[in-house]
């Protein structure tokens, strides 16, 4: 066991934890005032519920002994055998440190989905859906990529969760947006963000926490962590500029919301690549992510689905671009445990990344649709129109965000 690594990973776990309240504020500022608490509550309640689910069953399904490449066994059910001694295969950290670091990833991923069904979901339906989703979608995905499952065996590169966190939540978000339907008044009434300073604060917390997310995925306080930290930061900066410039040209003005959305898009895109690419390619990845995700956000108008807070546009397209970009720019010079990408003489990696993209989207979308149907039958998913008009704060929580 290594004291520096242990200290570093625990701090990173705390940084990733902080991203979930950060997301709450990021999303909260973008909805209408009557839904601010309902939106914030989604992320906060996930912090509570998913942490427990992870400890009891999620961790073992993700990281237990492999069964057929698809799922983990019950070795670590209720954290049995997860203690102060290192885990087999990760000998520099106490097992608990590794588990609790992973816990924070399991928490933020379902929180990302909440952006798609914002302003119209029933709290009970949301709770049941989230618990089922962590068990039946996140845990398998996590196992496939990081727990010794088939995608890892296939050679897919995903440093910090481009597939496990971003594409999975986006594919699921798309299913949710389609299944739940559009918000009442969508397209006719203007739905404008009610508190953009809150959104900017949330975005800043996400950027800060993402250092734990990406650098911590090195699982050690070493050069790779420093490299991932740097690529993360530069990609965010480049993407923020990229989005801002595209919007400036397209709509005539650079917007605050655009700049921070671009930063988030860049952070998403660099997530799978952070520990496999050098800094200049990271800047390219970020710059293109800014433009691609701006287009992704306009997509929903083209296809007619109401993804309230652009989970698909930013996490879906950003994660997909990042996964493919990893197949282009990965180099074993940065990380010998990885592979080389197309630009370093190995075009095969791009195909592997492509397969991981398709598998992730297909599995998560279909599985989520099934779960949505089950939850809808059991307790209902969408609020009735009177509750939707009153707002989630009053109808679901008997609270008002601002007593003005």
């Amino acid at each position, binding site marked *: 066991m290594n004291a520096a690594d242990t200290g570093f990973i625990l701090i990173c776990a705390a940084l990733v934890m902080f991203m979930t309240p950060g997301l709450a504020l990021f999303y909260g500022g973008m909805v209408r005032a009557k839904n601010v608490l309902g939106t914030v509550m989604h992320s906060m309640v996930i912090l509570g519920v998913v942490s427990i689910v992870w400890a009891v069953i999620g961790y073992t399904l993700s990281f237990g002994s492999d069964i057929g490449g698809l799922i983990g066994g019950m070795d670590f059910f209720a954290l049995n055998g997860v203690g102060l001694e290192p885990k087999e295969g990760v000998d520099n950290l106490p097992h608990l440190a590794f588990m609790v670091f992973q816990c924070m990833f399991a928490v933020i991923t379902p929180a990302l989905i909440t952006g798609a069904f914002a302003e119209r979901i029933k709290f009970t339906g949301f709770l049941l859906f989230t618990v089922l989703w962590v068990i039946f979608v996140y845990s398998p995905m996590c196992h496939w990529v990081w727990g010794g499952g088939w995608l890892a065996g296939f050679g897919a590169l995903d440093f910090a969760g481009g597939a496990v966190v971003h594409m999975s939540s986006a594919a699921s978000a798309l299913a949710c947006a389609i299944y739940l339907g559009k918000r009442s008044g969508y397209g006719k009434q*203007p739905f*404008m*963000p009610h508190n953009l300073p809150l959104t900017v604060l949330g975005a800043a917390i996400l950027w800060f926490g993402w250092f734990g997310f990406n650098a911590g995925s090195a699982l050690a306080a070493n050069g790779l962590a420093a490299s991932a930290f740097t690529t993360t930061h530069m990609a965010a900066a480049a993407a923020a500029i990229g989005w801002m410039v595209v*919007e400036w040209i*397209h*709509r*005539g*003005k650079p*917007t605050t*919301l*655009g700049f921070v*959305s671009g930063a988030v898009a860049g952070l998403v895109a660099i997530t799978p690549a952070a520990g496999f690419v050098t800094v200049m390619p990271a800047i390219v990845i970020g710059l293109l992510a800014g433009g691609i995700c*701006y287009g992704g*956000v*306009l997509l929903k*108008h083209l296809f007619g689905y109401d993804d309230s807070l*652009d989970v698909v546009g930013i996490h879906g397209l950003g994660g997909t671009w990042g996964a493919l970009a990893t197949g282009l720019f990965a180099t074993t010079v940065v990380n010998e445990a990885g592979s080389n990408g197309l630009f370093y003489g190995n075009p095969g990696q791009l195909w592997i990344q492509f397969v991981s993209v398709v598998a992730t989207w297909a599995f998560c979308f279909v599985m989520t649709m099934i779960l949505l149907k089950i939850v809808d039958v059991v307790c209902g998913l969408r609020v009735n129109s009177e509750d939707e008009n009153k707002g989630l704060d009053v109808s679901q929580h008997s609270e008002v965000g601002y007593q003005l």
Partner: protein
Amino acid sequence: MKKIEVITRPYKLDEVKEALTAAGIKGMTVSEVKGFGRQRGHTEVYRGAEYQVDFVPKVKIELVVEDALAAEVIKTIQNAARTGEVGDGKIFVSHIEEVVRIRTGETGNSAV
């Protein structure tokens, strides 16, 4: 007695208030409103989507005065609030049937 209702630019509030108090007016009620007339609104952009916002923030000043003072008060307000640009606003004058001072029970002109 006459009720005088002024809708005008928010930044003109202080100027109008000063002019009225200098002219001897003892009280008024102010509210923040929004509306439009000939003045156009503005465009807001959120994540690439454009929204046309028609309503413009304005301030509404309400005061009640004795009949004899109405014309002079209207002139005072107009001089203070006018900029010459579209969006200066309007003054509405209506008849007030009764005024009561709650503390003392006085009515009519002595309650104004």
